[in-house]
């Protein structure tokens, strides 16, 4: 579906993307995970043809994507990161306007508008001005405004920022339903939970480069350990940094130490030593490794920075 071949995009002061290559297959739910400023939105803008790359080439389906190729975007829906809505008119009117850009037959459009509004639970508020909506409601409207032409490729740029957990789940369900119905989805986020939950394949992007990509299992397998250990920072643990370092690399992360176990690590001997030093095991948590840990491992930084 999507082929990104050695794409570079430069802005006057920064290189937003550096020699990116990616492919997304038909029907995939592809996650683009990365921290702020990683280049996610820039990549989305290139995929829709809003920007032209400075180097490399992007094709969607059979069409080469450029600023001037209108054909390529007919079948793509972009959910912009910003709330791209007209505040002073109603939700319904917004959808009618954005739908009109695709020459959809009137009845079909009306039908789709109703269906999408119901799907994100905005049907009752359809006659209200968008300026009276809450942040989360605007997000949901922002999402469906990109779905009116029933695109086979959907590009979602952080579509759930500021949405409460319940509505977020509703959005997830909706997107998964669309994916099941055969739509290809590219989903950017800096929440690893979202990527883990939704995406069949994930690329981690940082500072304009793809640092790794694969299925969730592929990615987690890249971690050399099976357990992730975090030690809560408090008076009894802070002084024991040297002790923890004997078992692996320690990363100082806000309120806790993250321990990346080394090759010879044994859980039993770790707990034994720790108890001997008078650290309560209550302060030690073990979990399955996550993308968060992988990001930490690859970049030495936390995803949330």
């Amino acid at each position: 579906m999507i082929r990104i071949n050695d794409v570079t995009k430069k802005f006057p002061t920064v290189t937003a993307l550096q020699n990116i290559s990616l492919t997304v297959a038909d029907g995939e739910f592809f996650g683009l995970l990365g921290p702020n400023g990683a280049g996610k939105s820039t990549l989305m803008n290139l995929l829709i043809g809003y920007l032209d790359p400075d180097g490399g080439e992007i094709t969607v389906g059979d069409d080469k994507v450029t600023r001037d190729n209108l054909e390529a975007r007919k079948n793509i829906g972009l959910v912009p990161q910003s709330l791209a809505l007209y505040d002073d008119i109603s939700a319904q009117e917004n959808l009618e306007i954005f739908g009109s850009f695709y020459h959809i037959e009137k009845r079909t459009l009306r039908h789709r508008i109703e269906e999408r509004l119901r799907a994100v639970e905005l049907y009752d508020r359809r006659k209200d001005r968008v300026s009276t909506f809450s942040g989360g409601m605007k997000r949901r409207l922002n999402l469906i405004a990109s779905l009116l032409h029933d695109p086979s490729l959907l590009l979602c740029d952080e579509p759930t920022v500021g949405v409460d957990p319940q509505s977020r789940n509703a959005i997830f369900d909706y997107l998964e339903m669309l994916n099941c119905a055969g739509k290809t989805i590219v989903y950017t986020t800096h929440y690893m939970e979202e990527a883990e939950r939704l995406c069949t394949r994930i690329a981690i992007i940082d500072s304009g480069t793809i640092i790794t990509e694969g299925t969730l299992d592929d990615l987690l397998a890249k971690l050399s350990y099976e357990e992730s250990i975090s030690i809560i920072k408090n008076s009894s643990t802070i002084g024991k940094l040297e002790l923890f370092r004997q078992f692996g690399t320690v990363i100082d992360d806000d309120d806790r130490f993250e321990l990346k176990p080394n090759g010879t690590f044994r859980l039993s001997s770790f707990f034994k030593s720790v108890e001997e030093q008078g650290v309560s095991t209550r302060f030690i948590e073990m979990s399955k490794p996550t993308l968060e840990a992988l990001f930490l491992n690859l970049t030495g930084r936390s995803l949330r920075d």
Partner: protein
Amino acid sequence: MKTVLALITKEYKLFLSDRVAMGLTFLIPIFLIAIWGSIFGSADSGPEHLGLAFLNASSAPIGRNIEKVLDTTRTFRLVKSYQDERGNQIPFDTVTIKDYVRKGNASAALVIPPDAYTDTSIGLKLKFYYDPKNEMEMRIIQGVLTQTIMSQLPGAFIEGMQRKAVRFLGLDSGTAFNTGIKSLVSRYFNIDTGKIVFPSLTDTTAASSRESKGGRDFFKNVLDFESEQLVGKNIANPMATRSVGGWAMMFLMFTLTASSVSLFEEKQSGVVLRILASPISRVQILWSKYLYNMSLGFVQLTVLFVFGSILFKIDVLSNLAGLILLLVAASMACTSFGMLLSAVSKTQSQARGLGTFLILAMSSIGGAWFPTSFMPGFIQAFSKLTLVYWSMDGFLQVLWRGAPVVDILPNLGVLVGIAAVITSVSVLQFKKGHVF
């Protein structure tokens, strides 16, 4: 208090962050004051080189004197011939000089007819044709003209008397008569004999500063100043008819500037991205904005003129075709102007600032506020570069002069030309992708 101070600091920080917008805030008043200063600044000198059609058909010396004085006053620039279709300069005659004014090439004409002054007459006969398309200008022209001619009368009058005396009485007695006249005038006007100097024919300019006020009133009776309004005689509301064009243009430019900068809001909210994500090109967005703004401008102007015709009896119907064409051309030009603003500005406040600056500048030098003829020559050259000048002139032609469409073709052409040029510049600028 501290809070208010913090808020004020915030305002200044934001203001200072946009250098261009800030600069314009100061540049606008400075520039406009400079323009007004150059127009009204040297109050005693007044406007310069107002075109005045002039024909001297009289052989009397006073005719030449008046011509000479008018030629040397800074207020007027005498036009004594016109250009025919083949580009030849043809001297005026009594018919063509009226046409010249009627067509709007000059606001006024002064004709010294063949019988302006004869040996047997005491009075001076003059003809004045005028087109009060601009009241301010007409007042100045009439004022200065009257003053100049009056200044010539005492000399002419006395010279005539002298000549008659010499002819009737012979040289000796004539001289005696002259001396007698001197004391007579002195007694009559209650002036010191020494102060009465008979003006010589070669010293005409000096005469004007020397003549006395009392003398002027007296000689007024002697002057037969026949004036005829050539244009706009039957217009119900001259004031409104003359000024409606200038007002219309200003409103139009403000509306279209405001409307054009809406692009910045759309860009900021991301709507532009959403629109461009659909199969719509930048050029299509631009043209749709252009056509929308143009129609908006056209409707606004139409409403303005409809109300003008109801409230102020401005006659819009007699020349409807010309007026409509002009409205379309003016809307086109103003729309391009708005587009240019949003194409060259980086922020909305820059576009607004630049817009205000250009609107006020163009209105003032384009003649919406005071006649361009009052402005120094180099500013007048700029006047003709403004769309305000050409549209106002067009409205004047259509509403005031009742000119047929053919006569406003140059105006339409220039306006459409301006629109084409600045639209191309804007489109190029937009293509570079600075705006979206």
